[in-house]
């Protein structure tokens, strides 16, 4: 069937910010869908609030709305788009944007928006979404077609839940309806637990409903990825078997493709069931994911659930097989049939087939519990991992071992002795480190049978671990000097890394891995590269999608073209997220255009960078020195010049930069030595001194004594952190010696090589991020981003606004000057990020017409300057000091955001600079006029999104350690509205009326009245704790008083729980035995009440609320914003100074 011609415009819904359960995989799927539909000639409109994505690049869709993903904003987008093309066939594709997009589609349909604007849904119908998502409908549907399901009942109150659980017996699973990644779900082993879990589940469900289900805990778990076209052709793309049995969310399970322990009969029965399910649910076109449980001893097969859309598992399946599910799903949605779509990889055969694998794929999740002290680390039906790695090997053993090293945990369980009781507990209860404990148990002589009994993991998998252990023992038997070639080869074939072998032979220190490498060379044990080709080599493949293995034949003969290797960022992590994938992809796109052969190395299946058509070659490999070096050597073999880009993938590739360079690899762009210098406290401090750039006094410590002495010398408060980390891991602000001592004793590992850094913490300062491009001579500033939270909160966790709202021009100029100096001093070629702090004392303004004296052209001043984020406390015209906090001569988290705000693809330009091109080629006018990239007449606010709802009990306070998983952007022509939009997009619904609870530190009290006044003026009532209330009443405003949590009742938590408070302004005041901020923040998260922790943010919120009270819902496509800005910057501006 040819494509549909009754549709000409398609709105694709994205998934919004990266959150646990909805990660970069939807950037991959959305980008594929946009590209596929655009190539088919459709007018593609995209809505997504996440600026860090590739899909929101202006060239991916025809019109891109970076707007909140709510019904109101989508309706406005639909209205505008309908108006632009009144007669066009207009459709929405909701199946590539995760649960968020599906839920929105239902909302748009239920509220009549689709009908009102005559918009069709494609890819999935409302009925089929409801049938698949509503557990009761789904269960009925399954029973109708004769498929077995776990016994279950839907309940909307505790009493019914208890009654049903009593009937089927504990344990039971609680699954709230319509939530993401199993949010709010859990397992209950007894009545008491059920009450707690069910109460939370009901609360999380937007429809106050949850399913109580028979536990299939310990059953084998499988997933099938299914595709169907309009002609009812159905194919299975991939089978996935979970290493962890049922009971652990599949996103938190180690998974294996293809399924390993099913015979053909069992597999085909599952395939038949999957096909019956997709037909019965009525997913007309596209991909679905169907999950099954199989009883390990009886074979009873039950259907667990179905996602009638592209999912995390389909991203994995796409990367595991080479079959681009999202792209094909998009084409099917517009009417193509599977046989009409060619298989890109083989070219000669159609997409209508079932991929077959001649390798094994293992996915391992990445958790970051270290970021959330106090969180429950056990794994269950609610997903807790933040990212994942995928590894490909010819055997399960090889893939697993590659996956383990790709995880980049830096941890190893081995030497220490584990108490038998603890070991049992560690084996029985699923948790992030279980695999290590299993290996430990096997090493200690536990049999496969014993471990299988405790873990419920299939004995076949455990036997593979045993074989790995046996190999380890075999290697240990031989001294390195006389190890037989066969043993070495066998170990490498099983996936042993050089590092592990070095450890086995007790080599240590520098050059240990090098010795193994030389040993391998001597024994001729070298990796080869094989192709992922969808067909197990039955047909020739045209896409070099490669993985390493220790086999005979290599299928990746290197070319002699000039080439660039781009090191990706590995698994998604807090602090190292999709932004870096964005930069890597852009480097590849740009250099491909410039005629380079681009080579991507990455191990994250959720990303665009690991799409086989992003680069000329894709090596799906761990980002370790061994693997990267091997690829470099391989690619250089034909004599081509190979450059390597390390500065785009975050910390993971940066850690490899110096070792690679020392081994002779040509790193292009800023040299690793300078990147290193910027991280080296002593040398960097010296450089700043030479450049006469102020920095907060600091010290380094490699011992407890040094730390205490250093902190005392610098003066408290101090910021203490380990060197070489990203995302502020293990960073604290210490107000006293006790904290420093505790930190040094417990929190962190350090050494002479890697000392702890101690800086004076600039209290009460605003923080500023500056992104810049440099070719070593010329420098252009991409954006000066003013943080909305004050310094001390990790920049990734702080909302920020571009352009800066109210920083006086002379301070902006100073930051520019420092940035220029630093870029030249560090010989930056590519991107650079500088973080500044400006203390409020001495902060001054030169002009009340904020920003107007800036070099930015600003045609409308109406909304600007009415309010300020930062209250000036001094006004001496040119006063104020700018401190440099840190310099990162590499891509930063904000690059995609700045690129979207300015319309200038900074990462692309940076990649080109690294190949020797000059900044003047790209941005001559900005160099000549010494002006920053332009944001036109709009404000762009970036706000973080936090995973609090996944970690009940964890304190939600912000600090120097990054905790947010993703970000959103709000755009408007005034700051308040932009901030409000960002808050809405981040899921923080600012209230337009009601009651504000205010409680601030003594330090903030002098300014609290001015902020409170804004809320009173907008019609809000105030509630405050005694001290704050005194100040507010003293300023002549009415204010209710409330007890602190431990003072008595009703206290503030009672008010929150009683829905009496709509907004919380609470600046953290440190330990107060009566106040219990933690309880307040927790209650607020549960009740979904926005909590603001700085006065600066409170001012911003007030502006946002004012915008909301105006009741405007404005949307604008990015392309339109950029065009307007172009027009402005070309037109002679009378305001330009």
């Amino acid at each position: 069937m040819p494509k549909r011609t009754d549709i000409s415009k398609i709105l694709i819904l994205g998934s919004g910010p990266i959150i646990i359960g909805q990660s970069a995989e939807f950037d991959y799927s959305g980008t594929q869908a946009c590209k596929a539909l655009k190539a088919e000639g459709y007018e593609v409109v995209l809505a997504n609030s996440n600026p860090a994505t590739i899909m929101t690049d202006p060239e991916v869709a025809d019109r891109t709305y970076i707007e909140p993903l709510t019904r109101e904003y989508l309706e406005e987008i639909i209205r505008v788009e309908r108006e632009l093309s009144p007669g066009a066939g207009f459709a929405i594709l909701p199946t590539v944007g995760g649960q968020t997009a599906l839920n929105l589609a239902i909302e748009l349909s239920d509220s009549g928006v689709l009908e009102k604007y005559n918009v069709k849904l494609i890819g999935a119908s409302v009925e089929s979404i409801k049938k698949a998502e509503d557990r009761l409908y789904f269960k009925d549907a399954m029973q109708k077609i004769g498929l077995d399901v776990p016994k279950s009942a839907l309940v909307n109150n505790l009493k019914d839940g208890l009654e049903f659980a009593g009937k089927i017996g504990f344990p039971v699973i609680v699954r709230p309806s319509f939530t993401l990644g199993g949010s709010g779900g859990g397992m209950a082993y007894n009545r008491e637990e059920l009450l707690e879990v069910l109460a939370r589940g009901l609360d999380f469900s937007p429809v106050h409903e949850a399913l109580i289900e028979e536990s299939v805990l310990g059953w084998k778990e499988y997933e099938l990825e299914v595709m169907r076209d309009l002609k009812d052709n159905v194919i299975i793309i991939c089978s996935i078997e979970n290493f962890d049995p049922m009971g652990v969310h599949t996103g938190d399970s180690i998974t294996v493709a293809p399924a390993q322990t099913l015979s053909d009969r069992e597999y085909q029965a599952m395939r038949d069931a999957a096909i019956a399910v997709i037909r019965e649910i009525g997913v007309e076109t596209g991909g679905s994911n169907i999950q099954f449980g199989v009883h390990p001893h009886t074979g009873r097969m039950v259907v667990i659930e179905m996602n009638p859309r592209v999912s995390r598992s389909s991203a994995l399946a796409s990367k595991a097989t080479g079959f681009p599910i999202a792209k094909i799903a998009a084409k099917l949605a517009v009417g193509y049939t599977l046989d009409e779509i060619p298989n890109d990889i083989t070219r000669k055969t159609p997409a209508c087939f079932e991929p077959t694998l001649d390798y094994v794929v293992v996915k391992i999740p990445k958790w970051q519990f270290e970021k959330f002290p106090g969180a429950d680390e056990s794994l269950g039906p609610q997903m807790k991992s933040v990212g994942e790695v995928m590894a490909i090997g010819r055997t399960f053993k090889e893939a697993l071992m590659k996956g383990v090293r790709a995880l980049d945990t830096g941890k190893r369980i081995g030497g220490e002795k584990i108490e038998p009781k603890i070991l049992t507990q560690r084996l029985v209860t699923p948790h992030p480190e279980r695999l290590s404990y299993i290996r430990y148990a096997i090493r200690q002589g536990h049999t496969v049978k014993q471990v299988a009994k405790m873990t419920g993991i299939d004995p076949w998998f455990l036997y593979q671990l045993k074989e790995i252990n046996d190999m380890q023992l075999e290697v240990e038997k031989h001294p390195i000097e006389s190890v037989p070639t066969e043993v070495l080869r066998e170990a490498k074939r099983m996936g042993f890394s050089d590092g592990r072998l070095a450890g086995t032979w007790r080599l240590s220190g520098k050059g240990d891995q090098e010795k193994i490498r030389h040993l391998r060379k001597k024994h001729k044990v070298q990796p080869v590269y094989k192709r992922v080709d969808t067909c197990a080599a039955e047909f020739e493949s045209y896409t070099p999608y490669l993985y390493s293995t220790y086999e005979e034949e290599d299928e990746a003969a290197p070319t002699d073209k000039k080439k660039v290797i781009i090191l990706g960022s590995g698994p998604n992590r807090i602090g190292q997220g999709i932004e870096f994938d964005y930069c890597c992809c852009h480097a590849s796109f740009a250099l491909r255009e410039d005629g380079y052969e681009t080579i991507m190395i990455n191990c994250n299946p959720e990303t665009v960078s690991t799409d086989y058509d992003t680069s000329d070659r894709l090596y799906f490999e761990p980002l370790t020195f061994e693997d990267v070096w091997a690829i470099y050597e391989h690619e250089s073999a034909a004599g081509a010049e190979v450059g390597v880009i390390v500065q785009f993938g975050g910390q993971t590739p940066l850690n490899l930069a110096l070792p690679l360079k020392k081994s002779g690899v040509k790193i292009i762009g800023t040299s690793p030595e300078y990147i290193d210098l910027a991280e080296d406290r002593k040398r960097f401090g010296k450089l700043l001194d030479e450049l006469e750039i102020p920095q907060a006094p600091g010290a380094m410590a490699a011992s407890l004594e040094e730390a205490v002495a250093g902190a005392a010398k610098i003066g408290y408060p101090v910021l203490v952190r380990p060197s070489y980390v990203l995302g502020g891991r293990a960073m604290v602000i210490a107000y006293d010696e006790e904290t420093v001592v505790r930190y040094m004793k417990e929190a962190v590992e350090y050494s002479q090589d890697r000392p702890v850094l101690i800086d004076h913490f600039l209290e009460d300062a605003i923080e500023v991020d500056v992104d810049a491009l440099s070719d070593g001579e010329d420098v252009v500033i991409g954006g000066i981003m003013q943080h909305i939270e004050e310094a001390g909160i990790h920049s990734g966790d702080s909302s920020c606004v571009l352009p800066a709202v109210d920083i006086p021009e002379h301070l902006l100029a100073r930051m520019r000057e420092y940035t220029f100096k630093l870029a030249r001093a560090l010989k930056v070629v590519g991107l650079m990020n500088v973080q500044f702090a400006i203390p409020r004392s001495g902060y001054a303004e030169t002009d009340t017409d904020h920003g107007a004296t800036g070099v930015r052209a600003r045609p409308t001043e109406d909304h600007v300057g009415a309010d300020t984020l930062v209250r000036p406390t001094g006004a001496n015209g040119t006063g104020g000091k700018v401190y440099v906090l840190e310099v990162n001569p590499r891509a930063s988290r904000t690059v995609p955001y700045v690129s979207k705000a300015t319309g200038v693809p900074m990462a692309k330009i940076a990649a080109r600079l690294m190949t020797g091109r000059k900044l003047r080629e790209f941005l001559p006018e900005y160099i000549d006029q010494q002006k920053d990239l332009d944001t036109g007449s709009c404000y762009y606010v970036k706000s973080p999104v936090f995973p609090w709802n996944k970690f009940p009990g964890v304190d939600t306070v912000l600090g120097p350690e990054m905790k947010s998983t993703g970000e959103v952007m709000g755009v408007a022509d005034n700051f308040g509205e932009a901030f409000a939009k960002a808050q809405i997009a981040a899921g923080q619904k600012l209230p337009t009326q009601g009651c504000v609870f205010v409680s601030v530190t003594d330090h903030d009290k002098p300014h609290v009245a001015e902020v409170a006044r804004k809320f009173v003026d907008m019609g809000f009532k105030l509630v405050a704790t005694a001290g704050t209330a005194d100040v507010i009443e003293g300023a002549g405003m009415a204010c209710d008083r409330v007890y602190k949590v431990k003072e008595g009742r009703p206290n503030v938590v009672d008010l929150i729980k009683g829905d009496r408070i709509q907004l919380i302004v609470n600046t953290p005041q440190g330990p107060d035995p009566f106040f219990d901020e933690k309880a307040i923040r927790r209650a607020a998260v549960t009740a979904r009440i926005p909590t603001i922790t700085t006065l600066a943010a409170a001012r911003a919120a007030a502006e946002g609320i004012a915008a909301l009270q105006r009741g405007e819902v404005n949307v604008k496509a990015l392309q339109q914003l950029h065009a307007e800005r172009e027009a402005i910057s070309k037109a002679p501006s009378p305001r330009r100074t």
Partner: protein
Amino acid sequence: MQAILALEDGRVFRGKGYGAKGECYGEVVFNTSITGYQEIFTDPSYAGQIVVLTNPQIGNYGTNSEDNEATRPYIEGLIVREFSKVSSNWRSQQVAEEYLEQFKIPVLAEIDTRALVRHLRDNGVMRGVVSTIESDVEKLVAKANSIPKMDGTDLAKVVTTNRPYVWEVGERSHEPIEIVGFKDEPERFHVVAYDFGIKQNILRKLRSECCRVTVVPAQTPAEDVLALKPDGVFLSNGPGDPEPCTYAVDNIRRLMGRQPIFGICLGHQLTGIALGGKTFKLKFGHHGGNHPVKQLKTGKIEITAHNHNFAVDPDSLPQSEVELTHMDLNDSTLEGLRHRNLPLFTVQYHPEASPGPHDSHYLFKDFVKMMEEWKG
């Protein structure tokens, strides 16, 4: 145990031997199915062939008595990347290695099977020897060259039953029906099935469609078949080249129009020849469970199990008599035909699957319908 594969063109792969000690000879073919190794071991169509499995992990779920397609394995030898030393599955009764050892089938493991598959893909299937006892490569290559070629060899008469029998449902298991795929149904039709190397699942499928099945040897004359008063005749799959099986072609000609006929695989090729067509050998054949086949009338696609080295040339068939019904989407080869006037249809692929997808089970129903109509 060291083991070597030597191909007729001199290419050699060295790996480890599992299963039986010794040597095996045959045409080396590759199969891309992910699941179903036991069914492949025991499929008589593999007589004379050494099978390379592209799935690198073989043996994981062991073997059991229910998944056999014949009473013994028919492959000459097995080549895999990794052969599991253990089995794990609730139905498993025997580790795969033990099973093959019991029937003296040598296994070559731990070689670069992907390299071998690419070699066969580029150069076509070829003869080879797997040996665990001979290390002189030149001798092995010479041996490979001395193996009789598959082309022109009638293997059907080698693997067929030596006397007719009425098929009975074998041992029933405790497994749910959907796993075994078999239901006891009252007998409504009598089918005589020519055994050219018939797979058990064909018999199970026919039996599930209410057929009593009498299996007869490959060379049974048409008259003897008619004397059994069947409602329909089934032509089975089987190994080797169809051309030398002239006896079968003659019998099919004599049965055409006198009984509804349904043929699979070799049965399809023989029918093609009986209809005046020609067969040819494919470069490396179709062996796997993921082939898209299009029903030319409806445009509908089935994902099907394939196991054939030969194919019927559609241009050689008389268009006036024969309707082409199915086509492979990968290489556009003929996968099914139907006689325009007589009750006869055949498919090149395996609707009984086992191993493979069940998309084409409907053909057994079509056969029953054809018998119903014929009966009036």
